[in-house]
């Protein structure tokens, strides 16, 4: 019965309740949207970092991270059956071996320092961005392909073109300079200009030949099932490749890791700020609802209703309001985010975002955790906020309340 009274009370002043409901919906909408946008941004930065060669987990020879030279190579895979078995298992979605060394590239016009990456073209497909980013020429066909893939910006800086020759210079394991001419077989474009100037790709066997190195590799990069949940895979990789240095993308890019942490904190603060803005209106509305019913509350109390029931009645009123507002807000968020699941074009402000590791389309990412947290914050704190008006209502002395016309 109390809930029925509360429900009817809620609709006595329809306009006021609707305004409050709109405020709650808008608040929850703002919470969900803002976090979806921010999560989308961070996801994108993570994706692009993972795609740009980092993968989920990387394996290097000890010492390579400090001194990325051809001196530190992992033993060939066929010497470590445990790792081979792990890479073949379901837990690893994709993996590839690479040789990665600093090099110098020279055209007739200019010289630049780059990172030369020897790849296995077939394995690299699906693991990193390279295969999908070729805009001129073609992707490498085999590990022996002796053409080079260059970024568009680098080609411009070197004032060269597709099919022209450039000279690559690097160091062999004995620290001697080694150099060779190559034809530019493909040009790739990426959303990050830095990637275009930083890397030059060639077949892994071609690079071995250039560097006169043995059968080892500089790194093995692999993708697991889910980048957020790599602990068990990391553990297994570490025990399978105990001789090596194994790191996740988070350890490779501590900046991204810390950004994730800051994000979580920020989301909670943002929720609470929005809630506080909301709570003033909520408390005010309930307060008004209680004040204008002073007489009535006194009356039902005089008729024998317990104060605790009155408290309960007001709380139910508030819960009903919160729940309806939340539902409307969630539906509204869902409806407004759904049409944008292919991304929002933010190119007007995005060339700066590139600097921070993002591209020009932003895909809002709705995480269950955020939605649940947003709703929980509003519901729980909303109830706490309505305790005060409810408590005041239950404390009215019947006689005083009945005789008082207004407040």
């Amino acid at each position, binding site marked *: 019965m109390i809930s029925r009274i509360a429900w009817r009370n809620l609709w006595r*002043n329809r*306009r*006021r309740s609707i*305004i*409050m409901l*709109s*405020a709650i919906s*808008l*608040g929850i*909408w*703002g919470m969900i*949207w*803002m976090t979806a*946008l*921010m999560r989308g941004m961070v996801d994108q930065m993570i994706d692009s970092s993972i795609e740009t060669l980092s993968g989920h987990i990387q394996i290097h020879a000890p010492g390579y991270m*400090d*001194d*990325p*030279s051809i001196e530190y190579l992992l033993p060939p895979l066929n010497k470590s059956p445990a790792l081979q078995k792990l890479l073949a298992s379901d837990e690893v979605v994709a993996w590839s071996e690479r040789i990665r060394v*600093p*090099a*110098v590239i020279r055209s007739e016009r*200019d*010289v630049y*320092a*780059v990172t030369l990456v020897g790849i296995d073209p077939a394995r690299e497909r699906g693991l990193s961005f390279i295969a999908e980013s070729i805009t001129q020429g073609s992707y490498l066909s085999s590990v022996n392909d002796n053409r080079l893939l260059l970024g568009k910006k680098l080609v411009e*800086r070197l*004032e060269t073109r597709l099919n022209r020759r450039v000279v690559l210079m690097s*160091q062999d394991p004995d*620290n001697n*300079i080694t150099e060779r001419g190559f034809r530019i077989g493909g040009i790739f474009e990426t959303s990050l200009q830095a990637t275009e100037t930083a890397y030059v790709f060639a077949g892994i066997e071609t690079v071995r030949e250039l560097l006169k190195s043995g059968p080892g590799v500089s790194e093995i990069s692999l993708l697991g099932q889910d980048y957020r949940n790599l602990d068990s895979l990391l553990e297994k990789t570490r025990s399978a490749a105990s001789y090596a240095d194994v790191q996740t993308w988070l350890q490779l890019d501590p*900046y991204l890791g*810390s*950004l994730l*942490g*800051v994000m979580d*904190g920020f989301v909670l603060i*943002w929720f609470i*700020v*929005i809630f*506080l*803005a*909301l709570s*003033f*209106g909520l*408390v*005010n509305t309930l*307060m*008004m609802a209680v*004040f*204008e019913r002073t007489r009535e509350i006194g009356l039902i109390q005089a008729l024998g209703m317990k104060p605790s029931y009155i408290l309960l009645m007001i709380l139910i009123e508030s819960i009903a309001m919160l729940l309806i507002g939340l539902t409307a807000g969630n539906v509204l968020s869902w409806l407004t985010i759904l049409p944008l699941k292919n991304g929002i074009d933010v190119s007007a*402000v*995005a*060339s*700066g*975002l*590139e*600097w*921070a590791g993002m591209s020009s389309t932003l895909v809002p990412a709705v995480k269950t955790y955020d939605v649940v947290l947003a709703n929980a914050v509003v519901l729980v704190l909303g109830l706490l906020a309505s305790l005060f008006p409810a408590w005041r209502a239950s404390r009215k002395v019947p006689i005083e309340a009945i005789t008082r016309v207004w*407040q």
Partner: protein
Amino acid sequence: MTSTTYTLAWRNIWRHPRRTLLTISAMVFADVLLVFMLGLQLGQYRMMIDNSLALVSGQMQVQVAGYLDDPQMYRSIPEADQLAVQIRKTIDLEAVSPRAYGFALVSSEKRTLGVQISGVEPYYEQLISTIPGLISSGRYLSSASANEAVIGSTLARNLKLAAGDELTLLGSGRDGSMAAAVLPVVGIFNTGNRDIDRQIIAIPLNSFRQIFSMGNDAHSIIIGGQRDREEQYKKAISTLIKDRDKLVLLDWETLLPGLKQVIEADFFSAWFMYAVLIILVAFSMLNTILMSVLERTHEFGILLALGVRHSKLGRIILTESTLLALTGMVIGIVAGSLLTFYFSKTGISYPGMEEMSARFNLPPLILPEVSLRTVIPGPLAVFLASVLSSLYPIWHMRKLNPVQAMQAA
């Protein structure tokens, strides 16, 4: 508006002190938050800009047109020292320093890497760049003609070099001749910025000119100094270089386009947050004014019957909401400024900021800004939104009929 309107409106506001206080609190809360956040943001931006500029680029640079896009060695400024002296005199600033850049294969005993080499004037460089102060081992360059080099910490590690070791440069000079030199590394700097620590070797300008056959040229003249005098510098230098062929003055927005856009993007997303907050407060205001109008239906009916016009009633309500919003704004601005001012003296740091500050080269403490542009916009927006939201109750009143209104409880 007559004074009765004000008196009536002011009294009406305080009929329900608790409701009014809650509404004002909502506005003050939003105002304080907006003032603080905006101050924090602008403080952070200023810090990002100042620190990025202080690292390498300076406030502005004079270069040969086209050098920025395509840094070819032959695009150099002739008689650069002379021009630097002229600029120093014109804008009365010591922090003006010529630099030259080249590319070379750099070898240590064990390693060879391709690296950009900068030729700098040590005395003027320390007035512009923070790098001379960030030497982690050894010392900075001693004079413009010394034969020595300082290198970034990551580069030193990759080359397996320590202060005191020698490195060999091999590249080509401005005229295409061979450029080669053996220089001792006297110091290693650690800026915390991974690109700079990995990519830069600095040697004295005159030695650079000798090695790379540069004559008296340089590639860029860097101007440091205070950012608030930017416009003044710009004007003076532009006039100075007007008759020098092909020279251009580039400001920091051109030198570091990414930085400006990161700031714009961040500013844009922050306003989304602020807008949600402001609209929520407007809802709170709307509810309050609507309630106060609805509960006075009876009273308004009497006023109408006594011959008060609808427009006068509307004015009273508008005055009420304006006074309410104004009170909120004034308190909000004062409280917000005080809070922000306090933090602008003590500084703020939040957990997890260290890696981020390292990446963007920020000190881990942010000093929020308190100025007209941080204190006014937020509260003003809240004020306007609140007054606007009271238009609905006024519009609602417009068709009130005295007889029916008086029948309302």
